[in-house]
């Protein structure tokens, strides 16, 4: 179909899961429990349930990528999920509080590592791609981008979701 990225939606979700598990096991010593995985057409799903209700996204880091197709990897967390990630990366005890600035930096670096791991698996085989530096609080609701796969998971206290966005290819 003239699409420069031949990775299917199913493959993208599988790569995303491998990338997330790689980062969380190696760097956070944390096992994740999958809540949801798939490829949502169009708008992103708010896939962070807590109890019966959708949980509020409190932290978001966006790592843009450019190459044969442009897009972004978006990491969203609940407040508890963000603390799980910060404590995991910094190897702090459960319940230990982390300053907001350090939580934000940890979310950015986590998104950066997941993006790098995903790039190696899902993008590099199809061309030369470049990752940008993590951005914060940048809404991913960009009409020209479509979800190419997403994964929501639970850690010890909270939840997080990672979604890959791609711009529509110019001409298929």
């Amino acid at each position, binding site marked *: 179909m003239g699409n420069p990225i031949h990775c299917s939606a199913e493959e993208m979700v599988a790569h995303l899961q491998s990338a997330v598990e*790689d*980062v969380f096991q*190696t*760097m956070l010593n944390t096992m994740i429990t999958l809540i949801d995985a798939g490829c949502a057409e169009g708008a992103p799903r708010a896939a962070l349930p807590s109890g019966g209700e959708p949980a509020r996204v409190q932290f978001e880091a966006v790592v843009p990528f450019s190459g044969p197709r442009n897009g972004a990897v978006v990491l969203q967390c609940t407040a508890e999920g963000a603390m799980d990630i*910060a404590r995991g*990366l*910094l*190897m702090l005890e459960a319940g230990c509080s982390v300053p907001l600035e*350090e939580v934000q*930096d*940890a979310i*950015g*670096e986590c998104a*950066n*590592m997941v*993006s*790098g*791991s995903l*790039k*190696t698996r899902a993008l*590099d085989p199809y061309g*030369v*791609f*470049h*990752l*940008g*530096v993590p951005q914060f609080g940048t809404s991913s609701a960009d009409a020209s981008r479509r979800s190419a796969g997403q994964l929501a998971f639970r850690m010890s206290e909270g939840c997080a979701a990672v979604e890959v966005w791609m711009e529509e290819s110019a001409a298929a």
Partner: protein
Amino acid sequence: MNKVLIVDDSSTMRKIIMRVLRQAEIAVDNVIEAGNGVEGLAALGANPDIGLILSDVNMPEMNGIDFVKAIRSSHTKEQLPVIMVTTEGGGAMVNTAMELGANGYVCKPFTPDSIRSALEPYVG
């Protein structure tokens, strides 16, 4: 004798690397931190006795590629080893950094062992 410069735009990653250096029992007397290549060059100017650099690739202001290029205009690989610590494992960025004179690289996510083996040739 080993003064190490860690250059990474994430303070979290700088802390992780410092912890891994301790865990790996790498004898480091002093660690200096910088948030990008520009800060890294300033730190090197202020601390000419830095003996080893660990640098991220993807950073604002000055990335790790331009940082290595700048260092190699004044220091050889033997004089000042630079190890890249990067998420871009198989990517073009790492190849470019190696061509420009990086001594080696470690991919994030990393284990303490992978940092230890990358640094072993350069630390006592």
